[in-house]
């Protein structure tokens, strides 16, 4: 989780989405990023070496601060097919068609491969970013 140094505009977010989609696809990194009102949370999956280096790079990124890692663990299989982002753009029209973009309540269900503890972590973190009341199609129920 982290805090944006200043609010990210639609354009900032779109650029971040494009760059991360490109680089993460290249590096075989998957996961999801939540953004709202300066609150940021991200989950990334990939080769340990790749993830370690990426985390170092992201932590040093000047666009945000107060970066802290919640958990780091080795997994047997991935839970995300690609890398995506969920946030509330001011002009949602422009984003509908973009690959890898979701409105917060459209985030797809967490797959059953995710342990309940981890699914709950994603839910708590999403709740912390978007505030209570954004129940997406997943939530822990779906992963049972």
């Amino acid at each position, binding site marked *: 989780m982290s805090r944006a140094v200043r609010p990210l505009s639609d354009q900032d977010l779109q650029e971040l989405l494009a760059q991360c989609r490109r680089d993460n696809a290249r590096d075989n990194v998957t996961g999801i990023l939540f953004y709202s009102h300066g609150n940021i949370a991200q989950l990334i999956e990939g080769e340990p070496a790749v993830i370690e280096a990426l985390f170092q790079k992201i932590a040093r990124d000047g666009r945000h601060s107060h970066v802290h890692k919640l958990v780091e663990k080795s997994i047997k299989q991935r839970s995300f097919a690609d890398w995506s982002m969920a946030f509330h753009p001011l002009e949602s029209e422009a984003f509908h068609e973009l690959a890898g973009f979701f409105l917060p309540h459209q985030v797809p269900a967490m797959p059953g491969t995710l342990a309940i*503890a981890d699914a*709950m972590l994603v839910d*708590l973190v999403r709740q912390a970013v978007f505030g209570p009341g954004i129940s997406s199609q997943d939530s822990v*129920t779906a992963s049972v």
Partner: protein
Amino acid sequence: MRDQQLQDILRHMPAGIATLLGPELRYGFVNAPMQALLGGETPEGQPFAEHAKVIPHDLLEVMRQVRQSGRPYVAKGYCLPLAGPAGDAPTPRYYDLALEPIQSENEEERGLLLFAVDVTAQEEARQRAHELALETRRLDARLRVLTETAPQITFTVDADGRCEYVSPQWYYFTGQPPTADLNAIWPLLIHPDDRLRVLYQSEAARAAGTGWSYEYRLRRHDGQYRWLLSRALPELHGTHDKPDKPAYWHGAMTEVHDQRALADALRRGEAELRFLADSIPQLIWTATAEGLIDYYNQHTAEYTGLTGEELGPTGWVGLLDPAEQAGAARRWIHCVATGESYEGLFRMRRHDGQYRWHLIRARQLTDERGPCWFGACTDVDDQHRLREVLQTQYDELARTNRDLDTFVYAASHDLKQPLHNLRGLFDELRRTASFDDPEQEVILGMVDEALQQLDTTLHDLAATVQAQRQLTAPTEPIQLAGVTEEVLLGLRTQIQEAQANIILEFEAAPTLVYGRANLRSVLHNLLSNALKFAHPERVPHITVASHLSPVGQPVLMVQDNGLGMRLKDASDPAFQLFERQHPQLAGAGVGLYLLQRIISSRGGHLEVTSTLGEGTAFTVYWFE
């Protein structure tokens, strides 16, 4: 040199030149700069005083005296208001004026040479310097007042760490005399435990050309060591990216003793709480406002066999029985969103794989630092097991009880046939055999009575078990009058024999919601009792009445004028099974016991009042 040539040179000098001749100081030669100075036209022969209005009076007087005395005079930085172009306000300009007498026998040719050099620029610079000096002195004074009144010690040290200046507060604080050798004394006043560190840190900062900020204890005038925060910055000259090596450091020291004491207390408080939490044989944890666990106590590690690191911010849910994890997680997310307290009974895995029942509780605490969560998991496995054991035993007892009932019922039922046979045989015997002894008749009567009594007992035992079974039967609204009539019909032989007078009064509460069979049993027992214990010397009067109690609950009363009985306690008749009030009369005593069982099982109680030889009144409070 030709006169004309000389005049040309003079005319172009960058200084004003003029000759003023005769007692009236008439214009002689006037070059262009002087003309400009005097404000334009300077017609030769005109008296200087009349024409040049700009010339102040004192200057004119000095000119006259120079001419008279023949002694030259020089005035430096003399101010002349020069008329501005087109009648603007005159601006003051400054000149160095040289007045040189021109000697001559001829009165008219005696005069003076006026030489004026414009020094306005220099003069202005001088004045500015003066003003700056004044301002500097003012700022200096202000700085001194500030540094000496601020509640801080201010100081300046040089690159070698020698103290150049220290504000008077240092002397107040330390109580040292103004003559004290600062550089020798200061280090000695630092707390011995801090001294080496402070000296090293300050030297390192000076060597690196950077500032410093550290805390240390300095001895106050009363001998107490107080914590101070010392901060200093180097005085930097040169350009931003190529600064000179600093020569001085300026800084201030602030007393932070109380803050430190407070911070120490807080730290100690937290350490104590942590110690407490670690000592409790329960799983204790805290979580952030987002619901992520940030502390597990020592016991958690011991119970789970996992470190806080391994458990992570949500790992606890993975310790629960897999079937309960999703529900527990959903509940926790909901509580974090709403701030509601969390509570649940879960089976939680121990390090050895055994699941034990735990009561998990968490509450949100909100203070000025925002919300956070405190949670505890209490091992209630032993209680849980105990309850399970008790439940099993209870079930067993209930079953045994049922078996016993069944046995009693079966036995009484099975005994009926042999009894029946016995009576048949006995009747047959009486009919066919003849007895000579008159005593035999009495014995026959006793056998008859014993058989009768055995029959009643068997009947009552069966009825008791029957009623027991019917206690769980559904209830329905029942007309008291109708059921009572039915019961009386069953008792008609006894009523006729006794010639009893029975009065029914159900108008006040005609219906009752009850189990039908139970109600019938109650009425049957009460009425047959009243008939059985009738007084042999008078006609039995029995009243059956219903009414509502003051709180609106139905009540039934059965009153007789029979034998009456001896009571231990009216409100707790404590009828014991087979307790016989009147041993000379037939009856098993099972009846009253049965009554009480029925009434109390359905939530009511039975009261009785009685006077020996006068009569008895039973009151049934159907419900409390």
